[in-house]
């Protein structure tokens, strides 16, 4: 269905090609998962398929790309609209109309389909994706998962043979992500669609894939069955890592596979020492008492009381729109409490002058680029030194520790997602705020960048910062959080040590916990350490 023959792609002004001599064939009806680090050329590969590369992006393409027999060299993206449906990373950025029904019809209008066909297909798509209830709703009022499903539906109505998705679940909470993936699986099974899907969160999608395409970043592409590719791939979901640790062969790809093999491992682990998860938390850095925040008539937070201490990493979890961001905003004083109190080291953050705020609390926003405004990394660091009134070079040194080897003259927009996040983090840390907040830090981060982030967070805690991170990433929480705070509908519904909150929860349990439950193991590393320890006597 998708055929790439000898494809070499070089962007204008680039010294080396993004993709070099790539031969790739994806047969009809397969769900192919594209994995690789950020900036490795995943998005370029996806956009080759519907002709946006090179028609829209520019650059030089050698070799041949054919989709359903059509050569993209002579077909523009709009000429391929009835064969390939492309769903971008941020569904809201690709919406053209106002409401669900019009959005679904938009592609068909462009193709000039007759009215009765359009009506029939809109109804079918609404039913297929479970959107019937939302048909007249404005797109901006929908939740993230609903928006993503509308974006998928909007390209499905033209009855494409191929569906291409760029990180469809990275912004979604675990349950909304499952909703979207269930829809994709149904499309592959029932309609025989060929799906090409890029995703960093392998733990969410690896189990659905028929084929994994690894883009290592050196221009080559490796394609094979999931078990083959993931066995050697440097990036793998936790369940595969657990399989490697336990020495299972073939490697399990799903939690279900792993659970069937798990009894022996659980047996071995009963004698092993549980990892030491005690934390050495120091003084309280922030606390909220009966914190209530309302927007108009909406209660964003209702009576939240909690405290954050030095030396702990608290994960803030909950559905999209549950009130996570509002709590963060209240803690940095962007939002005054409607009633109740917020205190960061004894003062209400909303009363602090901007210059003093950064010595109390720092927030890395969901879009780290919001914090950056100069045209080079060097200027950015110098500005941050001045803002924080610290000796020149402090921020640069911090940034070098977090992501070494970035030249001073690089533009912040040209950094990878991970580097941009660490630059924003360095800027925030320059003033050494006792409390550091992060909003969705792993959005768009690959596994390597995530490992780096975990190390950085552990260092911060060791240095006595308190860290609060709002996230959907259960694997990150399992790695690094000492405490989990779950909020739903503006209320705290769970607050306790990570193991207690996460292991029993169907939505928030990491893969290893799902495999080894009820035993409280969270990450492959913990298991590996425990096994190594218990096997020493043998």
């Amino acid at each position: 269905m998708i055929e790439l023959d000898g494809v070499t792609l070089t962007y204008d002004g680039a010294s080396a090609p993004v993709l070099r001599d790539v031969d790739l064939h994806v047969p009809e009806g397969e769900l192919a998962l594209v994995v690789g680090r950020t900036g490795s050329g995943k998005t370029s590969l996806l956009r080759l398929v519907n002709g946006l590369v090179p028609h829209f992006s520019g650059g030089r393409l050698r070799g041949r790309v054919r989709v359903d027999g059509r050569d993209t060299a002579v077909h523009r993206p709009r000429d391929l609209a009835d064969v390939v449906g492309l769903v971008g990373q941020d569904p809201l950025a690709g919406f053209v109309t106002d409401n669900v029904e019009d959005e679904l019809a938009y592609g068909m209008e462009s193709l000039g389909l007759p009215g009765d066909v359009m009506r029939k297909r809109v109804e079918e798509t609404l039913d297929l994706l479970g959107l019937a209830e939302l048909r007249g709703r404005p797109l901006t009022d929908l939740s993230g998962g609903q928006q993503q499903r509308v974006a998928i539906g909007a390209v499905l109505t033209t009855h494409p043979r191929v569906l291409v998705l760029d990180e469809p679940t990275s912004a979604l909470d675990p349950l909304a992500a499952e909703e979207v993936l269930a829809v994709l699986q149904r499309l592959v099974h029932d309609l025989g669609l060929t799906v090409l899907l890029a995703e960093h969160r392998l733990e969410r999608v690896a189990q659905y894939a028929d084929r994994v395409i690894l883009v290592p970043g050196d221009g080559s592409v490796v394609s094979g069955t999931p078990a083959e590719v993931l066995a050697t791939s440097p990036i793998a979901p936790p369940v595969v890592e657990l399989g490697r640790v336990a020495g299972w062969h073939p490697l399990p790809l799903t939690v279900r596979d792993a659970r069937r093999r798990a009894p022996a491992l659980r047996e071995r682990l009963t004698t092993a020492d549980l990892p030491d998860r005690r934390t050495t938390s120091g003084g309280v850095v922030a606390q909220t008492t009966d914190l209530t925040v309302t927007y108009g008539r909406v209660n964003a937070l209702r009576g939240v009381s909690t405290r954050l201490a030095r030396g702990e990493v608290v994960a803030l979890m909950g559905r999209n729109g549950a009130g996570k961001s509002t709590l963060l905003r209240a803690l940095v004083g962007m939002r005054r409490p409607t009633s109740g109190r917020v205190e960061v080291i004894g003062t209400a953050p909303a009363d602090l002058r901007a210059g003093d705020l950064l010595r109390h609390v720092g927030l890395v926003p969901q879009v780290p680029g919001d914090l950056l405004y100069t045209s080079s990394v060097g200027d950015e660091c110098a500005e941050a030194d001045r803002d924080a009134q610290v000796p020149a070079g402090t921020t640069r040194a911090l940034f070098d520790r977090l992501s070494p080897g970035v030249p001073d003259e690089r533009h912040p927009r040209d950094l990878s997602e991970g580097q941009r996040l660490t630059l924003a983090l360095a800027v925030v840390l320059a003033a050494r705020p006792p409390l550091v907040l992060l909003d969705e830090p792993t959005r768009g981060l690959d596994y390597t960048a995530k490992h780096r982030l975990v190390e950085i967070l552990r260092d911060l805690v060791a240095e006595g910062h308190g860290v609060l991170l709002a996230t959907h990433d259960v694997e990150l929480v399992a790695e690094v959080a000492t405490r989990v705070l779950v909020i739903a509908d503006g209320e705290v519904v769970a607050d306790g040590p990570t193991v207690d909150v996460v292991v029993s929860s169907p939505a928030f349990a990491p893969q290893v916990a799902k495999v080894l439950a009820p035993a409280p193991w969270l990450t492959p590393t913990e298991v590996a350490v425990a096994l190594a320890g218990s096997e020493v006597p043998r």
Partner: protein
Amino acid sequence: MRPQHFPHHPRHLHPGAWWLWAVGLAAAAGRTQNPVPLLLALAVTGFVVGARRSTAPWARSYTAFLRLALLLIAVRVLFQVLLSASAEGPTVLFTLPSLALPATSGLKLGGAVTLEALLQATYEGLQLAVILCCVGAANALGSARRLLRYVPAALYEIGVACVIALTFAPQLVTDAARVRQAHRLRGHRGRGLRGLRRLAMPVVEGALERSVELAAAMDSRGYGRTTGDPLTRRRTGLLVLAGLLGLCVGVYGLLDVTTSAWLGAPMLLLGALVAVTGVVAGRRGHTGRSRYRPDPWALPEWAVTLSGVAAAAGAALDAHLHPALLVLASPTAVPPVPLLACAGILLAALPAVLAPPPPDSATPAARDAASPLGVAA
């Protein structure tokens, strides 16, 4: 009669009808600086929006326009006070310390502020404010994006540009707010020229990036795919563009009384004619774009459009017959009531009942669940 002809059958009115209505009302406001018809027109826009707007986010935009309009009046008055070019009228309210500027500039900073000058400025500001509110009402009632569905496919580039503009004007505002808040986190107050520079960079860059993203999305969803052969496309495009230009000049002529009478209605008609010819020619040239559930143009559409025309006609008639009623001789005198203009503007309030109510966006099932009977279930 089919249901779309009944004003009580819930559906979305054709956005074109709302825009024509608003243009009519704005044309009436453009003819006069008499506060009586102006305030009446303002009340009419508010009333109709209140009666017939939907629950969609863009329907809330009227308040934003109203706020902008009030700001506009305030700015106009402030400038009058600070830069009173000439002390018009004898009633001096107060005197500001004045600063002499070179006589050639014709400006004077500070000085005597007269009641006449203040009132005149208020009325002028009010006129602009009412026109702005008419646009706001049209935007709230017939979303500009829905109107965009009727842009002929031949105008491919213009369509893309309009969609992007409509998406990013509001997006730019929310982005700016977000980035400003982020700056506080870095210890700035975000004021002054430096603050503006720091704000502009991420906001504009982000907006540009997303514009490209949206254009790519439109392209990959087939927009502009079947625009016919290049020759017809060019001819259609030219005709429609010329027509739209004519329409714009015509609207401008209607709104601005000082221009020649030839710029008003005749130009509007000519423009409309050329544009329609272009669209028809484009259709024949098989532009191939179809429309999902096109809004019907039925009796309520005619009624709404005509009520707007009535407002414009009333003001135009009054301007012709009793010009003294619309342009005040002395701002301090109690403003007279121009009967014809007021009657026309009052007719423009009829859409509050003649236009069909917007349908509820919730599905029948959801409504049943929300009804008191459904609560027990």
